[in-house]
């Protein structure tokens, strides 16, 4: 075994990402500003390559490959998330390009950071050791802190960065403390060992409980679950829109991936405990997220609350996985979580893309009121937004409905029909604020006093990607079979 040759081969896509990141960073100083697009395309190309590689891995032999002394495991579960992450990162880069130019923060490092954050996420989704999970999380977070503050000329961007950083450090401290206790419990940070230790020691140990709660708190912060969500609106609002999209989508997906891995693979023995814990958190999340989202006037902030709410729905699926004692043993719940996040990613990305495209007198149009009359000015953009909003609200035949469908189906199977009912009632509440955007776009006339709005900030590639996103949102709504079977197949990892 010459220096982990097989391990490296298993991690080839990740390596490509990292290498591309380094190349981009290295090339940045010697690339003239006018040619900086090339860096973006280079990154997109690398991502496409990774996507292809991972897809190939899946098609050839979708089995678990443990690498680097069992610190990471490339399995079907990880590959699902990787596919998702590669795609959303690619989309993010495409939608960033015109946006960054318009905001005059088109830096080559930007792509480097995105790729490095992505590599952190990739580590997270395939890590089976708390150490690697922690490091992946930190890699992702630190990149995001920086990217949040990238638009330094705007005080909001920096303020968001500072808040994100302070609270992020705080939460990772909490997470780490929990990890240290788990280590003290099992003598190892490997999830498998922890599961074993919990199996032998029972669940009554105070250390176990404290550790579980601390880890839950640390992850809940990343997932933006109430009451650990409060950074989300501020950061989402302050960060450059493309980064907000990236955070709302990729970081959430990766965090959920790691989160599920930790709680199912590592703390699976504590199902009964943590399912109640997350049950409460999910209800809180749904209630607070929806209710507060109603009164938002800034669309990014509104989408931040929306992302909180969607985390709540995903948690419902997760709780269902924890509660599912039937023959299926929680797999429907986990599969539903994966389906949900995949769909959520594309609809949210789409919504942010439209926001990023919208300018108001050269500035970003962020207030919901800025959308007034969009249907008249930019019918296509308005229609796209309509589709994304409908999907976020979970109205068939969009994919958002399919997402909710599986989550609540899993909840009902797990005997949580009442939870599904509560959650769905709040889904009706959520329709209010999504539909308000539609209302403003379609039913209000543009404010006559405002500056004549310039055209949309877009590019052919972005148009293409958006078209794909809309098509995806509708097609997955109509024909969810591929996604569903992919998720079901991936979740078999936990059987």
């Amino acid at each position, binding site marked *: 075994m010459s220096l982990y040759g097989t391990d490296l081969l298993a991690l080839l896509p990740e390596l490509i990402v990292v290498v591309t990141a380094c190349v981009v960073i290295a090339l940045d100083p010697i690339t003239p500003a006018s040619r900086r697009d090339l860096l973006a395309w280079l990154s997109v190309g690398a991502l496409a390559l990774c996507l292809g590689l991972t897809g190939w891995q899946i098609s050839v032999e979708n089995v678990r490959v443990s690498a680097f002394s069992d610190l990471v495991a490339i399995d079907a579960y990880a590959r699902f998330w990787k596919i998702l992450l590669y795609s959303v990162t690619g989309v993010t880069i495409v939608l960033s390009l015109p946006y960054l130019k318009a905001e005059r923060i088109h830096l080559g490092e930007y792509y480097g950071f995105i790729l490095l954050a992505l590599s952190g996420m990739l580590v997270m989704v395939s890590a089976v050791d708390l150490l690697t999970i922690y490091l992946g999380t930190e890699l992702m977070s630190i990149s995001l802190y920086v990217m949040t503050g990238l638009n330094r000329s705007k005080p909001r961007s920096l303020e968001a960065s500072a808040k994100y950083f302070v609270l992020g450090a705080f939460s990772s401290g909490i997470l780490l403390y929990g990890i240290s206790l788990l280590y003290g419990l099992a003598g190892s940070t490997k999830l498998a060992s922890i599961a074993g230790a919990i199996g032998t020691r029972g669940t009554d140990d105070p250390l176990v409980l404290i550790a579980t709660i601390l880890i839950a708190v640390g992850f809940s912060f990343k997932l933006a679950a109430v009451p650990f969500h409060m950074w989300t609106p501020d950061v989402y609002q302050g960060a450059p829109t493309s980064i907000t999209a990236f955070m709302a989508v990729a970081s959430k997906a990766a965090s959920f991936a790691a989160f599920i891995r930790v709680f199912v693979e590592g703390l699976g023995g504590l199902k009964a405990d943590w399912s109640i814990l997350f049950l409460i958190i999910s209800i809180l999340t749904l209630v607070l997220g929806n209710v507060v989202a109603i009164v938002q006037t800034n669309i990014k902030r509104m989408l931040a609350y929306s992302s909180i709410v969607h985390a709540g729905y995903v948690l419902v699926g997760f709780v269902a996985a924890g509660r599912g004692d039937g023959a299926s043993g929680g797999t429907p719940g986990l599969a539903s979580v994966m389906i949900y996040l995949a769909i959520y990613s594309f609809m949210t990305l789409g919504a942010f893309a439209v926001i990023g495209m919208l300018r108001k007198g050269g500035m970003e149009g962020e207030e919901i009121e800025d959308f007034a009359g969009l*249907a008249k000015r930019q*019918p296509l953009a308005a229609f796209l937004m*309509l589709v994304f909003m*409908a999907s976020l609200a979970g*109205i*068939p*035949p969009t994919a958002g*409905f399919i997402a*909710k*469908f599986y989550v*609540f*189906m899993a909840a*009902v*199977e797990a*005997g949580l*029909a009442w939870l*599904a*009912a509560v959650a*769905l*009632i709040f*889904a*009706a*509440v959520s*329709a*209010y604020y999504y*539909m*308000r955007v*539609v*209302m403003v776009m*379609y*039913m209000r006339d543009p404010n006559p006093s405002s500056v004549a709005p310039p055209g949309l900030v877009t590019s052919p590639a972005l148009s293409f990607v958006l078209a794909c996103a809309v098509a995806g949102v509708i097609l997955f709504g109509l*024909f*969810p*079979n591929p996604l*569903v*079977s992919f998720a*079901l197949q991936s979740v078999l990892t936990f059987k």
Partner: protein
Amino acid sequence: MTNSFPWLSLLLVLPLAGAIAMSFVPESTARWIALAATLADLCVALPLWWLFDPQTSQMQFTEHVAWINAPPIYYSLGLDGISLPLVLMTVGIMPLCVLASWNAITTRVRGFMAMVLVMETAMIGVFAALDFVLFYVFWEAMLIPMYLLIGVWGGANRLYAAIKFFLYTLAGSMLLLVAIFVMYYYGGHTFDILALSQGTYPAQLQMWLFLAFFAAFAVKVPMFPFHTWLPDAHVEAPTAGSVILASILLKMGTYGFLRFSLPMLPDASRFFTPIMVVLSIIAIIYGAYMALAQVDLKKLIAYSSVSHMGFVTLGLFVLNQQGIEGAVLQMVNHGITTGGLFLCVGIIYERTHSRLIADNVGLAAPMPQYATFLVIFALSSLGLPGTNSFVGEFLVLVGTFSWSKIATAVASLGIILAATYLLWMVQRVVFGVPSPHHLPTLRDLDQREFVTLVPLVLLIFWIGFYPNPIVSRMHESVTNTLASMSREKVAPTAHPSAGGTAPLLVDSDEQLEIQGGSR
């Protein structure tokens, strides 16, 4: 019976294709495209009337294609004697909606027509779906188009009305979704409506499911305490929107009760019958009484819809053949009659730009044809014998009578009230002297408007004088529904976690006896 030709898919696809075509055509041809699409749909649907075999209770024109593998969901369509009239009514009303919007809609015509066409697809889908999830998808797919129809092309207070409509109906149907899932797990892991109708569910569970169904369907109908979205939505919607809303959308609630609540949850249905009947009667009387107080034409008709739909729910929940057939017929009737009334209001609104009764007086002199139509629709609405509504109401009352005489008596009072508010409306709008201020704008119907109204009038009298063809197509299906309601009571161990037995169940009360077989 399977039919090789995919009639129903064609019905669904045609309007949708029209809607998609809207994005490629100029604004000016949008109307023609929409008209062509709806008329083509009508042409496709009409043969079904004759192809339909009234001798069987089986679903006809069925299509069954796998849609989602896990859980098994099928693209499953079919019609029986209950859904056939509703589908035909839908495709019949839609061209009229397009025609009614011909001049009324001047902005974003393409969008408008596209929304109308999408609505058509969704509504046909609701009536034709044989898979619960498919049904739900169609059911919900209507929300956004309707929301836009009200919100974009509606009246002054349209934003409020649109969002109210949207949220109200959405909140109700969310609970339905949960119920669908529960049905899935208890009903043998299937979403097939026919299979679920044969399933057995623990009594306690049935109660909960019934309530969840009720939340969705009662809002849509709308039944008594959930009706307040209707006046707002009706008043603010454009004419075509009001017509679609009143004629077709409201029927989906009652259709839901009939297709799902009754056959799937027979015990709960029987248990809740008294409550449902009382609510229906309240709706009949209350809606009519409220209509009496209205000064806005559309609001008046909206409240009258509440009242008329009360008859439909009343007929459904007396659980006998006459009641249910009357209810189905009354659904169709209400679609025709109230659709006509809304079209009339739309026509006058185009002229005077007011829906207030006080602004539209004395139309008989300047607009005799219009007045004639309005009076005919009003008479139909008040259930004059010889018009369609009488037949429906009569059947419902016949059905109700064997359930409770007092209920029938009280419900009949609604007919008196209906005469009062409608004739009072006619007296104010049609009779009297028009205000000279409006006189120049009050020209009589043009050909397009005439063509819009005539089919409805013909239907009114056809059903009024010869209802048997339409009613006889329902017999088998209704009998079948009732038969499935009387199937074996449930084994309490249908599901591991279903501990509840049936203490809440009423014993087979004399009044609840199912008619049709043994009297």
